[in-house]
């Protein structure tokens, strides 16, 4: 080919950013567009499990084998996003022994290291497990931060020359002479990083090939070119606890069902989940019974969950897909495998490929398949290197311990900062001037927040997913205004205020599902801080009606009755001030 092929990737989740990285590393010219923030769709709404494959070892051994392979790859290339927690499949007295044995055999068949531990041994590892847990299978499950992983993939793509546009919604596919030749995109605030209040605009992006990596939204993109992509979105709830009741991933060892997993994640533990088909990936009911079921059913494994504090709940939609002729009734029966849909071959419409189905743990393998396919199409001979080249942040982990001392950050703030930043720690934390903590719950300092602002514009939710600021117990109660203050150097005040309001609203959204007990007290405290102390609910700056300041007490007449009470320093006290 005369010039470098330009590939447009639609979707900024794990698959889309993985594809963008892979293609950019193989020398393609890449533009990625995402309608919201990175991870806006399903990726940002998952339980954070790095599968060992154990969950699929009985029902879907092909997926299980892929999981263990990719599990090993991600531990290596994304070490700063992964916590090696290990996992247990625990068996209660009422759970089937036969299934337990099938699980064990399945793990062995798929190459998943598995070992049976007694109930006592399991409780020695996880003291809060129920006393009647009989035994467990230990597997190499892990926890992964999907936000950090996706941001690192996007950063790597950019390093390799890709253009990444968030808050840019595809409004149409360009089809000319029976071929997809590009996208119409609506930028909500202009190209580049998002800035509130900046006028948006349309852009036509011409491309030699389009990759539709929009997961549960794939059907919508297909519709734009008259293609039927039969994605079957399936919702699942996840409930976040305020502490880690367990440090190991705890799975219930029984055939797949609702509420059967607890994943330790950073300072929290995430309970999951349900599996219910929905018609619209953006509009589905989020219901109380789902949250109650997580708590009640998982309390059978970890009794203390019954009385424990949850800080919020969220829902995600799986981008499930099965070929139309399979016709599964129940979404739990739909395969977790992924499918590459070559629309040239399948629908006679060249110029676009969709990738659907699959799961987070195998995102890189999916991306590799797509990139191989694109290489094939353009006759490009380039090997995939994404399984070998570490992501930014995971490049050299031997220096981490030194960083903590070097940057003068008090442990555990230093430890957590460096864990999040990995090999980028020096670049981010080595700043002039003081580096105070902005978010106390998650130990996020100013340097880390400023680094995130650089890559995410005025969008505090984008800062949040990069840093975890405002994701802890207080859910932004104590730090939302501090984060707003951090935008001050780069943006004007109305922009800062819009970003601040958006963060408060986003934090409220998930907390609504946790409003009882301590978290209701926390919500009332936050409300009091934001409304009473800061008057953010009735901020005159937001009101069309100007305040008649002259009608209010201006201080004159206090004490002596002569002029503003405060004219004269010490005399302010009129001799009666007790202090």
């Amino acid at each position, binding site marked *: 080919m005369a010039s470098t092929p330009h590939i447009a990737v639609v979707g900024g989740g794990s698959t889309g950013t993985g594809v963008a990285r892979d293609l950019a590393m193989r020398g393609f010219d890449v533009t990625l567009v995402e309608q919201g923030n990175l991870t806006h769709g399903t990726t940002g709404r998952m339980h954070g499990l790095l599968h060992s494959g154990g969950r699929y070892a009985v029902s879907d051994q092909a997926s299980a084998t892929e999981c263990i392979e990719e599990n090993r790859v991600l531990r290596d290339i994304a070490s700063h996003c992964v916590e090696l927690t290990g996992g247990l499949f625990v068996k209660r007295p009422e759970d089937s022994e036969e299934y337990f044995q099938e699980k064990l055999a399945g793990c062995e068949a798929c190459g998943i290291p598995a070992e049976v531990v007694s109930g006592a041994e399991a409780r020695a590892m996880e003291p809060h497990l129920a006393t009647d847990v009989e035994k467990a299978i230990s597997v190499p499950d892990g926890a992964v931060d999907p936000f950090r992983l996706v941001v690192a993939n996007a950063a790597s793509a950019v390093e390799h020359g890709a253009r990444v546009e968030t808050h840019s919604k595809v409004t149409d596919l360009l089809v000319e002479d029976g071929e997809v030749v590009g996208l119409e995109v609506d930028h909500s605030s202009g190209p580049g990083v998002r800035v509130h209040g900046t006028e948006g605009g349309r852009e036509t992006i011409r491309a030699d090939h389009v990759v539709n990596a929009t997961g549960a939204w794939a059907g919508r993109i297909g519709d734009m070119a008259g293609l039927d992509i039969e994605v079957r979105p399936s919702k699942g709830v996840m409930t976040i606890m305020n502490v880690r009741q367990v440090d190991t991933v705890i799975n219930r060892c029984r055939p797949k069902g609702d509420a059967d997993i607890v994943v330790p994640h950073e300072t929290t533990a995430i309970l999951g989940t349900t599996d219910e088909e929905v018609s619209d990936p953006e509009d589905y009911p989020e219901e*109380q019974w789902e949250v109650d079921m997580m*708590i009640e059913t998982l309390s059978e494994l970890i009794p203390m969950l019954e009385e424990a504090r949850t800080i919020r709940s969220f829902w995600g939609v799986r981008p499930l897909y099965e070929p139309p002729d399979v016709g599964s009734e129940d979404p739990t029966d739909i395969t977790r495998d992924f499918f590459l849909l070559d629309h040239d071959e399948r629908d006679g419409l060249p110029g676009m490929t969709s990738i659907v189905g699959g799961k987070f743990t195998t995102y890189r393998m999916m991306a590799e398949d797509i990139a191989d396919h694109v290489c094939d199409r353009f006759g490009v001979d380039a090997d995939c290197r994404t399984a070998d080249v570490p992501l930014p942040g995971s490049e050299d982990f031997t220096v981490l311990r030194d960083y903590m001392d070097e940057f003068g950050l008090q442990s555990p703030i230093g430890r957590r900062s460096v864990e999040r930043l990995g090999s980028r720690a020096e670049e981010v934390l080595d700043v002039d001037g*003081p*580096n*105070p*903590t902005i978010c106390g719950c998650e130990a996020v300092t100013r340097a880390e927040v400023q680094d995130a602002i650089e890559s995410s514009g005025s969008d505090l939710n984008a800062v949040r997913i990069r840093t975890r600021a405002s994701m802890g117990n207080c859910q932004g109660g*104590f730090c939302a205004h*501090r984060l*707003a*203050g*951090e935008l*001050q150097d780069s943006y*004007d*005040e109305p922009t800062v*205020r819009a970003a601040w309001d958006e963060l*408060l609203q986003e934090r*409220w959204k998930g907390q609504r599902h946790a*409003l*009882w*007990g301590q978290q*209701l007290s926390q*919500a*009332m*405290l936050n409300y*009091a*801080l*934001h*409304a*009473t*102390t*800061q*008057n*953010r609910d*009735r*901020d*005159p*700056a937001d009101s069309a*009606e100007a*305040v008649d*300041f002259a*009608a*209010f*007490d*201006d*201080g*004159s*007449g206090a*004490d002596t*009755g002569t002029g*503003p*009470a*405060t004219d004269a*320093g*010490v005399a*302010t*006290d009129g001799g*009666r*001030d*007790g*202090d």
Partner: protein
Amino acid sequence: MAIESEVVVVGGGLAGAFSALAAAREGADVRLVSYKQSTLAQASGLVDVLGYAPGGDGPVVDPYDAIPDLPEDHPYATVGVDGVRAGMALFDEVAGRYRGDHTDRNAMLPTHGGTVKPTARYPSGAAAGVASDERDALLVGFDALVDFDAPHAADHLRNAGVPFDVRGVSITFPGDLNADAKVTRYAKLLDADAEVPVGGSTRTARAALAATVEPHLDGAERVGFPAVLGDDDPAAVRASLESALGVPVFEVPMGPPSLPGLRLEDDLYAALDEAGVSMETGNPVVDYEDEERVTRVVVDRNGAKIPFAADQFVLATGGLVGKGIDSDREGVREPIFDCHVPHADDRYEWFDHEAFGDHSFARFGVPTDETLRPLDAGGDVEFENLRAAGSVLGGADFAAEKSGSGVSIATGRAAGVSAAEAAR
């Protein structure tokens, strides 16, 4: 034999303190039992009466004009305008370091987030900051103190339409404080006026601070700082800075931990001491005994159950924040006396979907009769000798109204007076 008093007040926040104070001034023998530190450290130290009427538009100029129109289950409707005035009069008597009692009108005060809010009383240290005062202002923040970003606050105030010119500057606080130094660390350094290193030699902290600010004055007629100007002796800290800078100095109230809130707590506890109130602090009330009347409350002191008997009791344990109102997935309750707390059965009706929407939970609390005695679900008095005051009362969204302090003071005083009268 239980410790005997005429009146036992449970709860040591504003409502408890004013109940105990009012009852003691009526001549009763009063004991105040409180568990944790009061929530005053979490409040800004501004004393609001009514800043916004429910359903009203802009800020209320005169709270006493607006109170008669409040809904009938509002605590202010229970004590009436006269009850609120009486409460504020008692406040003015004991809170000598506060201003605003010369007028019924609210003052607009700058907040640490940079907007303004209406309030009835403000600490003398914040007085030069009132936003209806037209003198030009300079706001000074400290680069490591993340709760107050002065340049941001100044821009925000300007966009809120304040009638004066305001600029903000961020400086490095002299003295090599740790980046995460607490507000009390700043305050103590200024209280002590300790020597701090400045460019190879040393200077006293207040002089060094003033010298750092001085080049930024540029005609400003007053200077605002975050509320860290002294813990023990804020007037002296302010005086030193005013004398060095030649203009009035004020503090911008902040969130927790709030030094103005803690200073108010000091003054209240001094007033309680002076009034002869006995204190039992640091241990929770866990139970009560009754024979139609409450006869005693039981305090858990490291596992030992200590009874406190009295003729009259006041419940002033706070709302959801202070844990005077508790909840679980099934319902909402008042945990000590199990008083009735009205609430929807479906917990998804407890909140609004907007962060600053009309939240039912913000009005959770006990309903009372006209003498502040909690009522059961049937509308009958729960206990003949139990009164309730402050945030444990239902019917007011104090955060939206900016009415929390006023409700606590007015209902606290009224419950205390009424308990003392009944004990006679």
